[in-house]
């Protein structure tokens, strides 16, 4: 069975609509799960008082990553269009949005409270809490890998990236956007 790269099949309005839908729903879930995205590859659980905060986070992260990937794509292939990069970035964040579903789980929130109450001192959560944190760590890694895989396939189609040099530039762009987005969140 061959898995068709969706970015090779769909483009334009379809991907834009799907990307915007995913971002809005993902931001709503993040508000419900009290999650913040203070970096391109970050998800943190904290108190979210305003409903629009996760949406602003996602817009800033999407813009930052899209600009870095677009600049890299232009360097690789002069015909690369921003219109092909942005939907890829919007959709690539889906696994991160799914992580915020954990924030809607009462057991998970109790485990998080255990850590928060520790605040620098040794903490001793319940065994079920440790198991849950382990599960979240595994899911977090899986989500991070999924984000990179989606970005990789979308970027390959958007700018015809194929060689090792292209993938090194791609990795550099993602890491730079993570650093810059972190700085922006710190400054703003």
């Amino acid at each position, binding site marked *: 069975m061959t898995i068709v790269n969706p*970015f*090779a099949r*769909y483009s*334009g309005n379809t991907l834009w609509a799907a990307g915007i839908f995913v971002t809005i729903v993902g931001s709503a879930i993040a508000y419900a799960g009290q999650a913040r995205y203070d970096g391109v590859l970050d998800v943190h659980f904290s108190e979210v008082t305003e409903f629009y905060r996760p949406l602003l986070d996602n817009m800033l992260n999407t813009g930052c990553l899209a600009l870095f990937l677009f600049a890299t794509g232009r360097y690789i292939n002069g015909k690369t*269009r921003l219109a*092909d990069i942005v939907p890829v970035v919007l959709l690539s964040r889906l696994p991160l949005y799914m992580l915020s579903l954990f924030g809607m789980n009462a057991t998970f929130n109790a485990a998080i409270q255990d850590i928060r109450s520790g605040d620098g001192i040794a903490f001793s959560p319940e065994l079920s809490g440790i198991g849950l944190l382990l599960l979240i760590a595994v899911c977090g890694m899986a989500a991070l890998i999924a984000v990179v895989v989606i970005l990789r396939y979308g970027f390959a*189609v*958007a700018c*015809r990236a194929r060689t090792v040099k292209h993938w090194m530039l791609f990795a550099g762009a993602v890491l730079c956007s993570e650093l810059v987005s972190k700085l922006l969140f710190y400054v703003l």
Partner: protein
Amino acid sequence: MRYKLPVHCPSCETALQVSGLTCPQCHTVVSGNYDIPLFLRLTPEEQEFIMQFVQSSGSLKEMAAQLGNSYPTVRNRLDDIIDHIQHLQSAGHDHS
């Protein structure tokens, strides 16, 4: 069955030349050495793509809709063909 035009020597991979043409009506035979046109040296898939490109007035958007592929995929395919043509042209210059 549609037979594929061989463009490379099956023995040494050198680009083949046309040395004989026959009229199917009166069986007149023309002999000589003629280069195979560059278009015919492309793969059948590439030739088909170029035909579709011309028929859609050079609109990649229209082609993408017809082929059921995304716009950048079709544009990348065109870039691959351009690369192949440039490779064939430079190989041709090297031989001449």
